[in-house]
């Protein structure tokens, strides 16, 4: 079920009524209802893959229970690696089987040996990368004794399948989300209203910004061979805003929806395009994934504690794995490696934690230096997104070579002025709200009700009038 669908618009109020009014605030019943609703939500897309979630849930629940009683370190390790093997096994099969097979065949044919093997027609289960990482965090934390394993199977099932963040995150840490399923939930008016506002803003980002930008980004990337450099620059910019609107919009809707039911999900985006360096960008972009890799991969590898070689190696590993997490294509690996190259100079010169505060805090405008740094970082990000969006490496290189040609100094062949204007207004609103959780969090809060409602109506009207051609959320494919 998509957040931006009529189906979800009907599903959400029904679930709200059942959750708050029919369960009589009974915690067990509420958790059970969450599981049922989450399975309906996921099964709406393809019910066959519910068995995967259910299997992962059972495996990690049982391993968690076993880890509670087993003291022998070897046995504990075996249990941990069983969980990792099952979860990553599913992920590897559904997401990476064909990639490895194709590259294996290509490597052999490079050395003159032809191997015949057929690729499988595998459907990628939506959200598999997200819930796999979420359940892994549980087993690893239990193994490290950072988290008490749960006895409550329903609460654990609800944690794994919690519908607002099941298919595209934020990837929650078990230590943060699981305890929320044990606590009695109380409806908080301010939290619910805040959640509704965040849902509205998320829908605007997705339907108006991302879907409209997607139409032109697709058109330009799909016909890049026939278009001039300036149009390709515009295409890269459209994709830059598409992916941000799409993914952060989804996260906003997920977080907002959770708040309606008394849950707090972790923040996933913190205005990343206003970053002054790449390290800051990665502290603000897809925060739940970056911190997951930091906690479960970077730090166990030694982090930045070792020598220069260790720092370089670990940085490359984390960025390349992060790229590969997005998809089985060399383009994602290059995208990850490119970001590692951007990041390394900051790390090696100990400048990776320079910009921890929000840019131009308390001010309306940034300084010239801040503006220059933001534009530079934004440019690097846009450049890297070309690899992320391209069909393959050759496509990315031909795209970039046209950008670095004289044709970039000509007028773009495609220039939808209304979408450009809309995106600029969006950037302005985001800039003005950059010190909040989401851009319109405080906008109009103190206004009188009719005026505040008028703002909501205007936003809804904008969503209706400027809705782009419906596109699936990009991150569903990851």
């Amino acid at each position: 079920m998509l957040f931006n669908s009529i189906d979800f618009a009907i599903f959400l109020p029904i679930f709200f009524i059942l959750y708050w009014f029919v369960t009589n605030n009974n915690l067990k019943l509420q958790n059970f209802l969450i599981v049922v609703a989450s399975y309906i939500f996921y099964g709406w897309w393809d019910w066959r893959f519910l068995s995967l979630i259910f299997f992962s849930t059972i495996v990690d629940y049982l391993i968690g229970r076993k880890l509670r009683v087993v003291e022998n370190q070897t046995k504990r390790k075996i249990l941990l690696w069983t969980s990792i093997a099952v979860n990553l096994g599913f992920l590897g099969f559904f997401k990476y089987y064909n990639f490895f097979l194709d590259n294996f065949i290509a490597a052999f044919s490079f050395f003159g040996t032809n191997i015949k093997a057929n690729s499988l027609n595998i459907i990628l289960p939506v959200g598999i990368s997200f819930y796999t990482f979420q359940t892994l965090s549980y087993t690893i934390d239990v193994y490290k004794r950072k988290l008490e394993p749960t006895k409550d199977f329903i609460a654990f099932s609800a944690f794994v399948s919690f519908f607002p963040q099941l298919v595209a995150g934020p990837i929650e840490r078990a230590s943060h989300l699981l305890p929320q399923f044990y606590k009695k939930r109380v409806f908080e008016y301010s939290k619910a209203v805040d959640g509704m506002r965040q849902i509205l803003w998320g829908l605007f980002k997705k339907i108006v910004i991302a879907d409209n930008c997607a139409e032109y980004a697709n058109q330009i990337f799909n016909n890049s061979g026939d278009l001039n450099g300036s149009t390709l620059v515009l295409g890269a910019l459209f994709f830059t805003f598409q992916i941000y609107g799409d993914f952060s919009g989804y996260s906003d809707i997920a977080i907002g929806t959770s708040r309606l039911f008394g849950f707090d999900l972790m923040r996933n985006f913190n205005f990343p395009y206003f970053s002054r360096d790449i390290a800051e960008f990665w502290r603000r972009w897809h925060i739940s994934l970056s911190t997951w890799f930091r906690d479960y991969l970077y730090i166990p590898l030694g982090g930045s504690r070792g020598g220069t070689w260790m720092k370089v190696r670990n940085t490359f590993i984390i960025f390349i794995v992060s790229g590969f997490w997005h998809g089985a294509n060399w383009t994602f690996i290059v995208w990850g490696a490119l970001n590692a190259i951007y990041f390394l100079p900051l790390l090696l010169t100990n400048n990776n934690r320079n910009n921890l505060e929000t840019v131009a805090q308390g001010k309306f405008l940034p300084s010239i230096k801040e503006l220059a740094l933001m534009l530079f970082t934004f440019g690097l990000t846009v450049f890297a997104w070309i690899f992320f969006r391209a069909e393959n490496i050759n496509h990315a290189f031909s795209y970039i070579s046209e950008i670095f040609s004289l044709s970039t100094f000509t007028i773009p062949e495609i220039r939808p002025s209304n979408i450009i204007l809309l995106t600029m207004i969006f950037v302005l609103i985001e800039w003005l709200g950059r010190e909040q959780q989401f851009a319109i969090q405080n906008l109009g809060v103190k206004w009188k009700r009719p005026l505040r409602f008028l703002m909501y109506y205007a936003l809804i009207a904008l969503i209706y009038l400027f809705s782009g051609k419906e596109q699936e959320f990009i991150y569903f494919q990851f």
Partner: protein
Amino acid sequence: MTNFIRNILIFIIVPTIVLLFIIVPYFIKDPYLDYGKKENYSWTYFFQQLGDISTKKLINSTQEYNSFVFGSSRTTGIYACYLNQSIPNSSFYHYGNWNETIGGIYNKLQLIDSLGYKIENVLIYLDTDYTFKGEGKSHISDHYLISKQSKFNYLKTHFTSFYSNLTLKKLKILYGFKIDGTDFPNWHSDLKTNDPNHNCNDPKTILNYSLYDDSEILSAKIDSLKSSNILFNRQLHEEYLEEQISDSEKSMLIKIRELLKKHSTNYYFVITPLYDQKKFNISDQIKLVELFGDRVFDFSGINEYTANEYNYPDGKHFQPYISKCIIDSIIKVGTYNFSNK
């Protein structure tokens, strides 16, 4: 919680009132003619599907029909009243559709059969650019009894497609304002034959049927289509089309034959003369002939009808007099008797 619910209810009052003003007229005006029986089933708005309207008209009709015309918008050049004159004891229903597929034709025949009509004569127009491009499926916008979807889904699709692109003109339609232009063709179908946009009771209709339109207005329009390359330059030598009848479409044709056989129908399959002058593929031709014998009449390729560019007022359709010529030439062959085959 009470406060929250109260505020939500207050918030939705205004949109609810606005929505009521927009949605209630939809069910009153009923632009797709979905609810209840109507007096007039004519193609009125571009968003309507002709086949859908024709199906509704047939279902609600009290007329006795024993003969049917099937095919795409190119059948608008077929005058059912002329067929009634030409084939003794026939009473034709013009069951045309936009972009008709072979699957759509079969499903319509099946519906007619299930409604208890006797199918004595059938004239089917086959287009080389569309009829065999649907993999044996009917058109997605066809009536739910033809497209085999649920009635609820069919009504929901009409409702959502009407509002998915709500324009001022559509609002005017809902409130009964007169509009013209491209959204409001307002054709008047013949009450009995369902012939689109002409009246069979008008004596001039048949008289003018054989007339070639050489008016200056039409010539100028065609010249402009030529200059904009919509009427493109054609090959001097005849080209053959690629094979297009798939296995699923062939099985549809077999089913059509079985139905026609059941009714001992006198039938005519016409491959229409299109502007591109491309000849129907020989393998496909053989498939049709194997099933329908000498009742397959091929007018594709370079011939007297396709030679004249001025026969194509918009590049896609041909002048009605060509349909009359086709009818005259095929009727000569005589009626078909299944029992002899």
